[in-house]
């Protein structure tokens, strides 16, 4: 395999990992917690910027050095893995602030729009005030973690980074899986289904929604850090609202609420169909690439919501019949009256 192809492949795998972590976070909010977050990319951006300023060093001190051409409000040079931890923490803290502002007051579409607006306001702010994160030019020359310490070749480092991304994916997957299958995951789904009913059973939807929102925000922050540490630059154009819709499409196509489904969605949407237009140069002009991508994502969302709203691999039904059989020989006792329930029920 040529080295340029290997570089491309490594980049694609890092993208896949980043998208996977982000989409699992979005699924925790949207699929499991029922919070449609159209401002999701803001939390990824928060993680990316946090990683950048925690690795670039103080802006005043490095004037004239490699990164001295850019302005940002504050910076430090923390050792690995602290910048990643910082990105997770900032993603979480920002989610607490935004969550407390938006979640208790708004529901459904209004909530989604409010979150979209929050991300647009933040983007506008950073774009127009260059003293925060260097405005439209963004931050660049962001150091890669342990690049000097490892002393690998460019390609070797790329593959090592793919491995690092893989490990973070496994850890993130473990966290979302533990939450998803636990009583916490079940109560989150209950709030998603009917908030009033959950309240009537003594559950506190405010607390539960905030848990889902902050958990998703922390994963978004991590995904931003993993991305920016590899591509070493980050600007407002990297996190347009369009990016959020790529994630939303991936979750819808893969399967709302299903962590495995979301992984399928990530492979299908940003990777296979996001990259496919690249290989069809005869069909479209290169300048159309972005537009064709967006059209594909839009068609995907509409098509799936129309034909298969549960996604490629829907949320799994947790079955208890087997466990119950173990519980009771009393199944036979129930049998005399169970016919009534069975008339309509049955299994699908």
């Amino acid at each position, binding site marked *: 395999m040529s080295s340029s192809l290997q570089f491309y492949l490594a980049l694609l795998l890092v993208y896949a990992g980043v998208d996977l972590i982000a989409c699992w976070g979005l699924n925790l909010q949207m699929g499991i917690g029922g919070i449609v977050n159209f401002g999701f990319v803001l939390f990824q951006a928060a993680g990316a910027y946090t990683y950048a300023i925690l690795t670039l060093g103080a802006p005043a001190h490095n004037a004239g050095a490699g990164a001295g051409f850019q302005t940002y409000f504050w910076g430090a040079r923390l050792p690995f893995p602290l910048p990643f931890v910082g990105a997770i923490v900032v993603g979480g803290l920002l989610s607490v602030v935004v969550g407390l502002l938006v979640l208790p007051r708004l529901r459904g579409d209004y909530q989604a729009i409010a979150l979209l607006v929050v991300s647009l306001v933040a983007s506008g702010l950073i774009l127009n005030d260059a003293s925060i994160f260097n405005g439209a030019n963004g931050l660049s020359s962001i150091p890669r973690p342990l690049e000097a310490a490892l002393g690998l070749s460019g390609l070797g480092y790329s593959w090592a980074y793919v491995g690092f991304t893989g490990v973070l994916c496994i850890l993130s997957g473990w*966290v979302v899986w*533990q*939450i998803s299958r*636990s*009583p*916490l*995951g*079940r*109560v989150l*789904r*209950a709030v*998603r*289904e*009917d908030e*009033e*009913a*959950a*309240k*009537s*059973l*003594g*559950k*506190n*939807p405010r607390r539960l929604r905030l*848990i889902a929102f902050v*958990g998703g925000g922390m994963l978004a922050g991590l995904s931003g850090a993993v991305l920016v540490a590899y591509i070493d630059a980050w600007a407002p154009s990297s996190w347009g609202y369009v990016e959020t819709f790529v994630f939303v499409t991936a979750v819808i196509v893969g399967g709302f609420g299903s962590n495995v489904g979301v992984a399928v969605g990530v492979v299908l949407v940003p990777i296979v169909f996001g990259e496919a237009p690249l290989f069809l140069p005869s069909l479209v002009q290169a300048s159309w690439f972005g537009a064709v991508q967006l059209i594909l994502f839009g068609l995907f969302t509409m098509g799936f919501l129309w034909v298969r709203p549960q996604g490629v691999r829907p*949320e799994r*039904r*947790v*079955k*208890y*019949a087997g*466990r*119950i059989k173990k*519980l*009771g020989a*009393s*199944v036979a*006792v*129930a049998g005399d*009256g*169970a*016919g*009534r*329930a*069975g008339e*309509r*029920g*049955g*299994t*699908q």
Partner: protein
Amino acid sequence: MAAGAGDRDDPMLELRHVSREFGGVRAVEDVSFSIAEGAAVGIIGPNGAGKSTVLSMMAGSVIPSEGEILFCGERITGLRSDAVARCGIVRTFQVSAEFAGLTVMQNLLVAAPRQRGESVVGALLGWRYWGAAEESAIERAYELLVKFRMTDVVDEYAGNLSGGQRRLLEVMRAMMTNARVLLLDEPTAGVHPKMVGELRRQLQGLKGAGLTLLMVEHEMGIVGALCDRVIVMARGRVIAEGSLQEVRRNPEVMEAYVAG
């Protein structure tokens, strides 16, 4: 106000001069009554009488404009509905509020109170931490399913159940919370007549087991069969109280129904 003699001794739930306004309209005006532990009380009255509002205020989903509500002698006025539910007062809804996308068993398990795995840390610690509590919750849910003759639909999505089964599920779910008072908002609405009998049988069983029941209901058959006492409301006020036979003879009640 004119509560039955037995209720005076030990009121479990008490409303004192409760009123509620909605944008200048007084939906409920100066309502007072008390319910003894283990009693079954029905609230009846024409549409718009304020019955559901009274029930919602007891459940904490509507805050009274005036007056106070006491549960076992303690003030619960103004508590949020989830806090009221944790005290042991659990309601069902006029339109069934099952978690449609969850199975029957999951609906029941959600209701199990204070599950260890409901905190973030608990969830991350995994099955070893919360598994035992989960198993005992499954056992309790199973006992309810047997009692309510619904073991066949344990893995069915609640959204696929019939209207009557949904009602039964709501009642079972309330039982999973260890409720001490069950507030039923028109439990027979939209339920097939055949299932009404089953629902009544189950509610009678719960009453027999000592659960305190309060129901807002239009179907007099189930009110007559279950309720020891009936409160009649019209235009936001309590206009009569007593057994169903007594209030039926009350001319004011007759007038309210005809005029209301």
